[in-house]
């Protein structure tokens, strides 16, 4: 009897600790994040998602307005598993080595997983980056970490335009006041 009571107490404490220790990430969020972190073996090599994407997912999951039920977690993990199986069957270690059919299939799984939480997936056809959005605000992206932090091209174009307009204006004024002899 004492052993039964001890076992029950341990089980309750374990459940409480599992819940209480995941203040930012509850059980369901942790399940999803752990699946994303999983390394897989492909062609004898260990493959995983880039760390920056994992961090973005973790930052998103820590938000209070993000709630994942057990069923939702199951669905998301199912799509992650499908994407993983595609990579395994293709036997490649880089996304760039996948054929178009496999890339499309993986993208479909990404969209479906994101859709479970009402997220949308956007693809930039120019630089081929993928961005996951919640209410049109990015939550994760494959964009480069470093951005343009100098004079932007738009400012350059406007400055050049202003200079050209000023030069033309100077010539027009000079012509009008007959500074340039006809």
């Amino acid at each position: 009897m004492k052993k039964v009571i001890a076992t029950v107490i341990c089980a309750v404490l374990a459940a409480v600790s599992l819940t209480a220790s995941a203040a930012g990430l509850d059980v369901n969020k942790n399940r999803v994040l752990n699946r994303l972190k999983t390394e897989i073996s492909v062609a004898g090599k260990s493959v995983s998602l880039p760390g920056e994407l994992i961090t973005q997912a973790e930052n998103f999951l820590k938000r209070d307005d993000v709630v994942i039920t057990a069923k939702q977690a199951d669905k998301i993990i199912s799509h992650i598993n499908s994407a993983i199986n595609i990579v395994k069957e293709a036997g490649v270690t880089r996304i760039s080595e996948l054929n178009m059919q496999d890339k499309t299939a993986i993208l479909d799984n990404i969209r479906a997983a994101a859709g479970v939480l009402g997220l949308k997936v956007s693809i930039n056809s120019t630089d081929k980056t993928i961005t996951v959005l919640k209410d049109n605000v990015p939550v994760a992206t494959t964009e480069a970490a470093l951005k343009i932090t100098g004079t932007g091209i738009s400012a350059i174009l406007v400055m050049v335009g202003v200079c050209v307009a000023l030069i033309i204006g100077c010539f027009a004024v000079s012509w009008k006041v007959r500074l340039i002899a006809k």
Partner: protein
Amino acid sequence: MSKPSFLGNGVAVYFYLPLLLCAAGYIVLMAAVFPLLSNALSSLGLFTSDGAFITPETKAIFEQKDYGALNVEIVYEKDIVMPTYGTHYARLTIPSLSVAVDLYYGDSSAVLKKGVGQYIGSSLPGYGRPLLVGGHNNGAFGGLQHVKTGDIVTITTNYGIYSYRVTGVKIADCFDKSAYNLQQEKEQLILYTCYPFNTLGLTDKRFFVYADKVSGPRIVSEPLE
């Protein structure tokens, strides 16, 4: 019909007068038309920067608080509000360089016009992981060119004040991923901006400043009750 002649009109006509008119015109445009110009820049920026999404709106959750209330050793994760993309969530200062700027989560061009932006693939202060923050070299981070080893960078958030000591700088290509390691198991603050600092135009070089955490509360999960 007589044709215009460019001969014999003097230096005053072909040099000083156009120069004076250019300077006067520029001053008038910048002073009187700048609000319209900034709208034009923003509009043009829609076509020349940032990808499929446009987030011109930014918001703020940062509140200037009593520093005494922020001088704690640990912060519980449940008490932290995770910012969304484009949110002003902290204040970054470098007293030795007279830098004091708003820090945003996210680094779109709209954000970088207002302050400095944190790459969302890096962690928030207090999590023991690296932070990557970018800013314009003709704006908030122009002063980085004068940074010295030992300078202190402070990030003040709603939940704590974090200090980082500069350990070094590096100039590297913008595609050189070895210039920053966001997976290391220590809290390193990495600031970056375009290089050279006075370049008028796009550049593929970046100026990196590395700083290690020296103080600030550690974020922990809620304890058992």
